[in-house]
Structures are given as structure tokens and as C-alpha cells.
């Protein structure tokens, strides 16, 4: 008999008892859904970690080291070239590059706008003209403005209205940040920046090249460390931090802090790994019980359809044909449940990831699909083979009597 015919007759018999078939698959569905959910979340965490670590495609990792001055009014920078040289000398084997990291998004400044000093004002810095803002008066920063380091700046609509009542009035006024006097050439529409994570929601937008010129080009309160492939970045960062506390040029004026996103995510990963073991155990039990359910149903089916088996054998089905038919029924049942479980697990992981910290997204891979398919098919084979054998080995004479 052709394989397609075997599959067809398997589907036919399952359709004859839709409720029973559906109920039998529920256990498989739940088991697979649980496994896929936890795998998708686990993969999400791993992907987040690798995104965070691997700044380049060849697997280089990077971390940040920040300096916080003890005197909040202090203008001393935490790191200078001497510090970078120290790090290169001592950790050159591991650190590929140590560079002053200039913050470009929502940097806190205290500019003088008009005659007024405005504390806790945010400025974002750009190197190329941006189209992500809507200019309401004046003009946007141009490429030549930026390349020539013209002392020009853009102001946010709400700040302009607060200081000068209309956006038009703000054009041409001056903003002084540090020692540089900027001229306002444009006003842009306010954007939501409630969490301080929108670059274009800052109060001012200025030129990064100009802002970090002079002494600020080679000094700063943060450094970015890029490591060679295969280096334990977290550990080395900690060592560098200790070294800075001992030898750093500004060690006595403040504290150092390492920002290591990988370490934070590693904690989540540990939690997920623990959960994976736990949920896999539950899913395993669920699949086992579901398998016994399948076996039970197949035994019932075999004994209900004794006559059919007899007829098929009498018209020339070989015992192998009969066994294949019943085994296929069990497999169709479990794989059907498994695929449904896969879909549910995917959905569930997507929903749960909305409530996870650190922007973790559910990641469903081809491997997860193959796992769902393989496990459910195996359950079908393992728990379907005995009933199928029983069907194939029925005594034809006794059935037909």
C-alpha cells in the first residue's frame, strides 16, 4: 500500500472520533507548549546577552567604566590619556582598545539661556544632520554647520516657548554651555522623553564635534573597553576597576563604577536556566502521562476496530500494513498536538516577554520547532508501537469467525 494511502486512512479514522482525538492530544499540547515557552524565553535572554557583548561580528566584547566625582560641582574629568595608557600597559594582552566614551544622548548640562542658568537641562549630540526631528522655526543643523564646528544649536519647542514665549523669538538668541557660546538657529517640535531614553526628546541638540572639543576630547567621565575575542570581559573589567582605584589619576576625587550589561543579564540567564530545568521536568511528566493517554486510546481503538483489522488482513493487508496504519494514527495524533503546542508556546512566550526586564524578546528557532516535532513524534512512536503490534498480530481466524 502506498504511504499516502496509509496516512489518509489514519486521518480518516481520527476524524471518525474528533472529540476523543482532541482530548487525547491535550496533554501533548500542554507539555510541548511549556517547553517551547521556556526555550523561547531562554533563547531571548541568550540573544540579548550576545547582542550586549558582541559589538562586532567577530565576537569582540565591550564594557564601560564610569567615574563619579565626589564633589558634584567638580569639573575634573575621571579619565584622561594617562589613565588610558595605564590600562593599555597593564592589560594590553586582553584589552584591544580603551577609549574615552562620550555620551551623546541626553547629556546633563547647565547652560545659560538668555541670562538665566538652567540646571538639569539635557542636550543630545549629533555628528550628522538628522531627519528625526520636525523643525518649527529657523533651520536644521546642516552638514557644513557640523563639519565646520559652527557654534550653532537647536532648541526644543517647549523650552523656546517657556523662555521666549514664541518659537520665532528664540531664533538668534544665545545659549552658553561651559565656555562656548552657541547661537540658536532652529526650534524643533517637542517629543516625548518621559524616561529620558529618546535622543531627540532632549532640550537642546548640538554638534558632538564642537561639544567634545579641546580638553574634553581626551578626557571624560566614561571609557569604553573593547576586549579581544575569548577574553572574560566581566572579570577583566573588575580587575581594571580595581587597578584604577589604586592608580587612576582621579582616584582620590571620586568613585569608579563598571557597567557590565552581561553580568546583569547573566543573572536573568541563571534564573531562566533554573526555570528551564524545572519546567522541562514538569513537561516531561506531562508528556509521559499524555503518552499513556495515547496508548490507552490506541488500545481502545484497536479493540473497537477488530473487525476492520480482520477485513483489511483478509483482503491482503500484511501485518506490517496494519501496524503501520495504527502507528501512523498515534503519530498523527501526537504530532498534531505537538504542533498546536508549538504555536501556543510561541504565543505565550511573546506575551510573557512583554513583562520581562532588559528588553528581552522571545526567540523561537528552527531547533525549537524540530524539538517540538521530534519529541511529539517520538511520544507517538513509543506509546503507539505496542497497540499497533497488537493490532498487527491479531488472530485472523478468530476475528472473522
Amino acid at each position, binding site marked *: 500500500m*502506498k504511504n499516502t494511502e496509509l496516512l489518509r486512512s489514519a486521518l480518516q479514522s481520527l476524524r471518525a472520533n474528533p472529540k476523543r482525538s482532541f482530548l487525547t492530544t491535550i496533554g501533548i499540547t500542554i507539555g510541548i507548549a511549556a517547553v517551547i515557552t521556556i526555550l523561547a524565553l531562554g533563547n531571548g535572554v541568550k540573544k540579548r546577552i550576545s547582542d550586549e557583548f558582541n559589538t562586532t561580528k567577530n565576537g569582540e566584547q565591550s564594557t564601560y567604566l564610569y567615574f563619579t566625582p565626589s564633589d558634584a560641582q567638580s569639573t575634573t574629568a575621571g579619565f584622561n590619556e594617562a589613565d588610558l595608557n595605564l590600562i593599555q600597559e597593564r592589560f594590553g594582552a586582553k584589552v584591544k582598545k580603551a577609549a574615552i566614551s562620550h555620551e551623546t544622548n541626553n547629556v546633563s548640562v547647565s547652560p545659560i539661556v538668555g541670562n538665566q542658568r538652567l540646571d538639569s537641562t539635557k542636550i543630545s549630540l549629533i555628528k550628522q544632520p538628522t531627519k528625526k526631528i520636525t523643525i518649527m522655526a529657523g533651520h536644521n543643523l546642516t552638514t557644513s554647520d557640523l563639519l565646520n564646528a559652527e557654534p550653532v544649536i537647536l532648541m526644543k519647542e517647549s523650552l523656546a516657548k517657556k523662555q521666549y514665549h514664541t518659537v520665532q523669538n528664540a531664533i538668534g538668541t544665545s545659549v552658553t554651555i561651559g565656555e562656548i557660546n552657541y547661537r540658536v538657529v532652529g526650534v524643533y517640535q517637542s517629543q516625548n522623553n518621559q524616561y529620558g531614553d529618546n535622543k531627540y526628546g532632549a532640550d537642546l541638540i548640538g554638534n558632538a564635534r564642537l561639544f567634545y572639543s579641546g580638553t574634553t576630547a581626551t578626557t571624560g567621565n566614561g571609557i569604553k573597553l573593547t576586549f579581544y575575542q575569548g577574553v572574560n570581559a566581566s572579570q577583566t573589567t573588575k580587575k581594571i576597576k580595581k587597578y584604577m582605584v589604586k592608580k587612576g589619576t582621579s582616584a582620590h576625587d571620586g568613585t569608579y563604577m563598571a557597567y557590565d550589561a552581561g553580568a546583569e543579564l547573566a543573572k536573568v540567564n541563571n534564573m531562566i536556566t533554573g526555570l528551564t530545568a524545572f519546567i522541562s521536568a514538569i513537561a516531561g511528566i506531562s508528556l509521559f502521562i499524555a503518552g499513556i493517554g495515547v496508548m490507552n486510546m490506541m488500545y481502545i481503538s484497536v479493540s473497537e476496530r477488530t473487525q476492520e483489522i480482520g477485513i483489511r488482513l483478509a*483482503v*491482503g493487508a500484511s501485518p506490517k500494513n496494519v501496524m503501520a496504519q495504527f502507528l501512523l494514527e498515534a503519530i498523527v495524533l501526537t504530532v498534531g498536538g505537538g504542533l498546536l503546542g508549538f504555536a501556543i508556546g510561541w504565543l505565550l512566550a511573546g506575551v510573557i516577554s512583554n513583562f520581562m526586564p532588559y528588553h528581552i524578546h522571545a526567540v523561537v528557532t528552527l531547533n525549537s520547532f524540530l524539538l517540538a516535532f521530534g519529541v511529539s513524534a517520538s511520544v507517538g512512536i513509543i506509546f503507539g508501537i505496542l497497540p499497533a503490534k497488537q493490532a498487527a498480530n491479531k488472530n485472523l*481466524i478468530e476475528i472473522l469467525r
Partner: protein
Amino acid sequence: MTMIRLEHINKYYGQGATRFHVLHDINLKVAAGELLAIIGESGSGKSTLINIIGFLDDDFEGNYFYNDEPIHDYTRADFAKLRNRHVGFVFQNFKLIRDISIAENVILPLLYAGVSRKQAKKTAARVLSRVGLAGYDDKLPTELSGGQQQRVSIARAIIANPDFLIADEPTGALDTKTSQEIMDLFKQLNQTQHTTIIMVTHDPRVAEQCERIVKIIDGKIVDDRKVGVD
């Protein structure tokens, strides 16, 4: 030409002290094209005998030569093949699968022989019209009368062009008029298609319409005669 040759066939049911000797030293030859009736009381062993002849039962003592092939040496899988290629069965209670259509029932032997479904369905329509059930393809067995169901069963038995048919009390569940219709169909198959038919019956009117009658009592052949010859 001798198609079926049974030599010293013995058959037992059960084991040890409770062993029951069903068939005693059966010797029988059936030639191609015969229409043969096996008669006997219930429990005489006639069904057991045709189960052996029809390759349903592979557990017997003695020799069975089918077209001079020693069937008694064959394996279980070989028997499935023999059933599929060489014999068609018609049972007293029809033995149709209830939840699939008439056509699906009829094409089963062809499907197991590896014929495509499309081709098999075409053949089924032709065979169904030969047994007087043209257009019944998509009906379910339960929608048909007993006589019609037996015709379906005959259609299934002949669809793969077997060498011979085994009919176990084919008219046992039918009224007199329907019985005669089924007998007429068997006779027609035997005369026009030269299909060999071996049937078991306890109805003398049915047996008298065959060409040869073999009588079995207590597992022994006691009479073997040509009808209208003695």
C-alpha cells in the same frame, strides 16, 4: 488443470489434553473454473477447511499445493500476499468497514496491491455496475439492504481479478429471493468470467445449483460428487 491440491491435511484446535482434532486427513483437488459447494453440519469443520484453502489459516499439518507451489512452507507475510493476489472473500455477514463509503470498501484490495486511488476508483465503478450497484459509490454500507451489502462484498472480492472466490455462507443472512439473486450472480461470474468459486453452505437449494458438492461430517470428507452426474 488442478489449481488447489490438499494432501493429508490435519488441523487441531487447542493444546495438550484439550486438543481437538477438527480436520482428519483431508485430500481434495479443485480445478480452475469449478463452482464447488462444501456442505455439512455446523461444527463439521467446513469453515476451517475453507480458511485453509483461502490462505486465511497458515497453521495446519499436511501439504497444500497451490498451482503446484508448496504453500505449507510459506511465511505469514507470504500468505498476506497470496490473499491479496489470488483469492477474494465473501462472508456471511458481509464484513464491510462501516464508516467508509462503498467505493472505499471495494477498492481496499487494489490499494493494498499498490494501485493508485484514482485508478482503483475507476475500476470500482466498473465492478459495482457489474454487480448491479452502479452509482452507489459514495453511499455508506449502513444505507444499503442486506442483499446490496452482499453485492458490495462480492464486488470487493472480484475487483483484483482473483483466481478464485471463497464464499462462507454467502446467502446465510439473506431471504430466499435475495439468496437466489446472489446465487445467480455467482453463477454468472463462474460462467462468463470462468472464476473458480468455492462456497460453504448448509442450504441444499443453494448447493444443488453448484457443479460439484463435497460433504463433510466430523472433519472427514464423506461424499464428493458432480451434480446431475450420479
